[in-house]
């Protein structure tokens, strides 16, 4: 669309910075990105950052300190559209494993002992635990193609509607043999597509790093893996690795039925 350039901010909460890095990894497109929009804030790329009203805020990382909660709320207030960028922002990331506050405390002590930390920490959560999120772009980290397509659509004023599909779809596009069928612990059917089935294309089962796909059949795959000889504990742990907070409802129901 013609007219004024969109004002964009890219923010990093707690995570590996991989999503911001993936934006920098769009080497060929980077000049066009900077030309197409007015990047107000992008700590990894520039010094002269302004925290003002924004059209779109891209937020990566999970919320792990009280200060980040405040920062995030401030970003929401300043932005018309907020996009959760990457697995940490969408589901809380791998660090969202300890949701039980007591367990979290216990593990926290294991690492930091009794030292009173100056910056109070909170249990790791995705950003939608605190603010309304308009779009989700999962991935650990996001993929370049997925980001560029999304970003371009946003710039042109028509963010794409989500059409959720599991990794299996891309996996078949790549003509891989089904690893699950071969008895491997593959999370492809439960994981949102976007990576292009990288792991199965390297003969490795999907670890689930795009987070849960909408409409995934967790119950069936759970029993299927059990049917293949994996232990219940093992399945539960492996399913939890990249699912963040998004499976809590499923486990509640699942455990109740058990």
């Amino acid at each position: 669309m013609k007219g004024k350039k969109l004002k964009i901010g890219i923010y990093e909460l707690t995570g590996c910075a991989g999503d911001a890095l993936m934006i920098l990894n769009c080497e060929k497109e980077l000049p066009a990105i900077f030309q197409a929009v007015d990047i107000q804030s992008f700590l990894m790329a520039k010094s002269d950052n302004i925290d003002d009203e924004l059209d779109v805020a891209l937020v990566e990382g999970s919320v792990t300190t009280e200060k980040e909660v405040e920062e995030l709320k401030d970003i929401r207030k300043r932005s018309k559209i907020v996009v959760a960028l990457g697995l940490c922002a969408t589901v809380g990331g791998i660090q969202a494993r300890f949701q039980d506050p007591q367990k979290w405390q216990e593990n926290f002590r294991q690492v930091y002992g009794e030292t009173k930390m100056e910056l109070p920490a909170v249990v790791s959560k995705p950003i939608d635990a605190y603010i309304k999120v308009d779009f989700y772009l999962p991935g650990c980290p996001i993929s370049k193609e997925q980001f560029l397509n999304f970003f371009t659509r946003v710039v042109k004023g028509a963010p794409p509607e989500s059409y959720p599909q599991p990794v299996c779809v891309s996996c078949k596009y790549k003509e891989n043999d089904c690893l699950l069928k071969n008895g491997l612990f593959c999370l492809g059917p439960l994981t949102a597509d976007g990576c292009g089935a990288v792991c199965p294309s390297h003969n490795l089962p999907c670890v689930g790093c795009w987070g849960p796909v909408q409409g995934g059949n967790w119950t069936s795959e759970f029993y299927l893996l059990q049917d293949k000889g994996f232990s219940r504990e093992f399945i539960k742990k492996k399913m939890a690795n990249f699912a963040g907070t998004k499976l809590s409802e499923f486990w509640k129901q699942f455990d109740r039925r058990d």
Partner: protein
Amino acid sequence: MKVEKKTTLTKNPFLPDPARIVRVYPLTQDVKFFQVRLVDINKALAFQYHPGQFAMISILGAGEAPFSISSTPSRPGLLEFCIRKTGTITGAIFNLKENDLIGVRGPYGNGFPIEKMLGKDILIVMGGLGAAPLRSVLLYCLDNRDQFGRVILLHGAKCPAEMIFCQEFQDLKKREDLECYLTVDTDDTGQWEDNIGVVTTLFPKLKAINPEQTVSLVCGPPVMYKFVIQELLKLQIPKDQILMTLERRMKCGVGKCGHCAIDYIYTCLDGPVFTYWDVIHMRELI
């Protein structure tokens, strides 16, 4: 060896034709009226369609979706659409202004069986955005008034502000050759002079119907069908004379993408107009 072979194909059915928005104005808060003309004047005049057919509209950068044609083929040259803002594509259409370009291809689908309707009484029941496809057939009947028997229009909306073509239909009420009944579920204005209640509350107001002689056309939100059809069946209108037009996801409009499949038919080729008999016969229709 030389494998390459000269292709025999001439027309790519997936390529739209550029069209210019001639007029655009809001019908309700979330529905806008678009009048467009194909840029190529010859194509514009050659664009022949039946009431009830649809076209694929594409917006650069947003995508393509099917929309019923609301204008009547009896007034050629311009195409009209009523579009409700529900998603990305319609959102992008909403941002367009007069003189902007869109892509149009079509017409697609079966449309209403006008030949079978000739000489018959036409009972049109519409609710909400159901007015979009049925306005086409209504205007067609009115433009060819002598070819049809009675023409009856029942139109319902949630409230006066949400009635699509409210003014147009109010004006039509003055016509003596049209039995026009309007209703709103609730009147939040205090100014509404017509009926208040759901669309089925209009049925008792109808003058006696000759069921064998009547073709009924229905379109509206999914919840409306059940109740309206009950009324029509009560009037003893034969099941294959109750026509309805349906909405499905479509990516091609030409029977290839598969999204609109129901049993073994494609809504885009065999529909979107179906009879109530089809509906009973093919369980997935509504």
